[in-house]
């Protein structure tokens, strides 16, 4: 059985226990199990709303997916969860690379970190043991420097999750990095790590991950890999990576440009231009896609999100400059999505005269590369106007009240991807209801753009849906369907790129997942039981949000998406109509079994309370 550890950085006390099987049956692992412990420890601290994200009571939880580190296809991922300093709500970030596998090989599937170290420290996780060490020579280093020093200290096979200067300085959009680019980027959890005086977690050790039936897992791996590699989408992702999505959004007129004042940008950022700076495609543990570029400017990436948000959204067109910005935010440990969104917000506020030179320290124009480079450093080190922007969405408190009208965020999380959702209504609903805030990886119905035939949509979703991406009707059930399967993928540690419904109706679904779990863990799940796990995780996250003070009013969109029509190309004139959005939200709540206030049924609350019950001395 996998092991869970609780580490109290204040006292130095470490408890280790096997993860109970009844919790695996209920929540699998990864994101779902993290949420259980997040709720449990927020309650243990008293009122969850009163927990300071930077305080010692905020639990910081690293949880590998149930299949992570095995040979199951694309099972490389883990989640980091805490109360978010960026949103003051549920914080969660999902990350690929090699850390999840290293953590499991070192003997643990989950680390729950409490308290605050007296001095800068790091955790060494090795061969079933955990030690808290002083971060001498590490504190103050950049992400690549810290990772290199940990490899030098503990061996070349060491994989570490580290923060850069941004996390150390409690920048509210700081990421936790496990490679040159792999980031647990969302929700500012790098700042939680910094507040705990924790620079890194280094995992090493070569114990094989126990597998119930090696032959069956190997057979499933081969069969599913062949199935995935027959998908044209998988082939194209392996050739071009996510940058090939830019052209699609840009041609449609749906690329967030200059803080969504415009909706298309330059062709300098298409995949063929990015590829000129790429010398290799890289992969995560057990990946069959290989979608990550190694760039010739000293880093990895950029992904589509970064191209959009540190390119079009801040008005920067030269390909090399966007790649350099990508490398810079990764080196300093900043979330690229939040950084690009917050910079664009500030640029529009300056353009409109809502903030001036007295605050910004000088001109702040879209497209000014040198100014952006300086500002990114200033954000990471909290200098000058960078100290204001380091507050991310919480900088609202420092700006005039009308500044909030131009912020592209939901639940105070800057929108994660560069797609302007005013055209495709299901995307808009998904952003509005995503548990961690404006985020596409919780529920985006990516098939909605395909105009699939009725019978195919019926087969995929099991309900009646509309083929028209601009329709409001029949979208709520589609979003709920994606909520559930993406949650299950996150609990297993499986990448969305191979998950059924994400850009193709031909990827891995509940049946494939059940086969992998049976072979790897030895537990039987029906497809219906797996979907029920997804429902349970979404409900648990809803309950956490409600307990943190969220209401139906928070399931909304940026003002611009309701009021400003898209200006050009095929999407011209589209916006979100408020009344129809509210009706879609009603339908979504009904599809989830929630009441019209977004509250869970009492029976589900009782079930979740039972799961997350905390007894002193029996913390697992």
């Amino acid at each position, binding site marked *: 059985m996998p092991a869970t550890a609780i580490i109290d950085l204040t006292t130095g006390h470490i408890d280790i226990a096997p993860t109970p099987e009844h919790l695996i049956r209920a929540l699998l692992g990864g994101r779902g199990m993290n949420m259980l412990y997040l709720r449990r420890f927020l309650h243990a601290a008293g009122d969850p709303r009163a927990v300071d994200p930077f305080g010692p009571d905020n639990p910081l939880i690293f949880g590998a997916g149930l299949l992570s580190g095995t040979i199951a296809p694309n099972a490389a991922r883990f989640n980091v969860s805490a109360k978010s300093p960026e949103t003051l709500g549920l914080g969660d970030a999902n990350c690929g690379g090699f850390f999840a596998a290293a953590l499991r090989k070192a003997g643990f599937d989950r680390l729950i970190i409490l308290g605050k170290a007296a001095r800068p420290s790091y955790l060494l996780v090795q061969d079933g043991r955990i030690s808290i060490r002083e971060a001498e020579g590490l504190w103050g280093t950049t992400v690549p420097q810290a990772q290199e020093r940990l490899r030098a200290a503990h061996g070349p096979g060491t994989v570490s999750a580290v923060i850069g200067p941004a996390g150390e300085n409690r920048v509210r959009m700081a990421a936790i990095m496990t490679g040159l680019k792999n980031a647990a980027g969302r929700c500012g959890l790098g700042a939680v790590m910094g507040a705990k005086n924790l620079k890194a977690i280094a995992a090493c050790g070569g114990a094989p991950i126990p597998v119930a039936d090696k032959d069956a897992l190997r057979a499933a791996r081969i069969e599913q890999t062949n199935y995935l590699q027959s*998908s*044209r*989408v998988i082939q*194209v992702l392996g*050739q*071009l990576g*996510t940058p*090939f*999505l830019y*052209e*699609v*959004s840009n*041609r*449609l*007129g749906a690329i967030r440009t200059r803080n969504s004042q415009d909706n298309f940008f330059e062709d300098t950022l*298409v*995949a*063929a231009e990015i590829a000129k700076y790429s010398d290799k495609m890289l992969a995560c543990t057990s990946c069959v896609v290989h979608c990550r570029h190694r760039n010739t400017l000293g880093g990895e990436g950029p*992904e*589509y*999100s970064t191209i959009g948000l540190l390119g079009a959204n801040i008005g920067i067109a030269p390909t090399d400059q966007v790649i350099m910005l990508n490398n810079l935010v990764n080196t300093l440990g900043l979330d690229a999505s939040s950084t690009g969104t917050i910079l664009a917000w500030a640029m529009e506020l300056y353009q409109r005269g809502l903030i001036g030179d007295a605050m910004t320290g000088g001109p702040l124009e879209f497209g000014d590369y040198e100014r952006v480079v300086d500002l990114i450093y200033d954000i990471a080190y909290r200098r000058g106007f960078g100290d204001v922007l380091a507050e991310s969405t919480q900088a609202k408190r420092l700006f005039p009240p009308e500044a909030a009208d131009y912020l592209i965020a939901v639940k105070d999380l800057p929108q994660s*991807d560069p*797609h302007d959702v005013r055209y*495709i209504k299901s*995307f808009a609903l998904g952003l509005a209801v995503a548990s961690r805030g404006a985020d*596409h990886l919780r529920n*985006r119905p*990516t098939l*909605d*753009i*395909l*105009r*699939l035939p009725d019978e195919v949509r019926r087969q995929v979703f099991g309900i009646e849906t509309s083929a028209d991406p601009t329709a409001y009707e029949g979208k709520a059930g589609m979003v709920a369907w994606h909520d559930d399967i993406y949650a299950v993928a996150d609990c297993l540690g499986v990448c*969305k790129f191979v998950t059924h419904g*994400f*850009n*193709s*109706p*031909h990827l891995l679904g509940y049946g494939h997942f059940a086969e992998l779990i049976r072979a790897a863990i030895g537990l039987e799940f029906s497809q219906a039981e797996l979907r029920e796990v997804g429902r349970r995780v979404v409900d648990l996250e809803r309950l956490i949000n409600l307990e943190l003070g969220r209401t139906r009013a928070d399931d909304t969109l940026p003002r611009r998406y309701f009021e400003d029509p898209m200006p*050009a*190309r*095929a999407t011209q004139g589209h916006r979100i109509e408020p009344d129809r959005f509210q009706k879609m939200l009603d339908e979504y709540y009904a599809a989830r079994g929630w009441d019209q206030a977004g509250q869970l049924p009492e029976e589900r609350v009782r079930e979740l309370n039972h799961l997350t019950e905390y007894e002193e001395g029996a913390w697992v």
Partner: protein
Amino acid sequence: MRVIIHLGEPFWRAAGTRQVELALAEDATVAEALAALAHTAPALAADLAYNEAQPLVFVNDEAATPETTLPPDARLHLVWPVSGG
């Protein structure tokens, strides 16, 4: 009538060109243009007929369906139908 088709990723790689000019009958549809394209550039035929998803087609920057009638001198853009990253 003459139409120009701009090929996005990954279509242009198979065709070996970014742009194809076609002569079509008056009132030709998008479906007919794609059939003519597959005939002109056989290397594209597999992607155009691929059952996983049909390409997104824009005609003069407007979203189009296979039934859309093409105006003279239409500019078509073909892109792969994806939206999540």
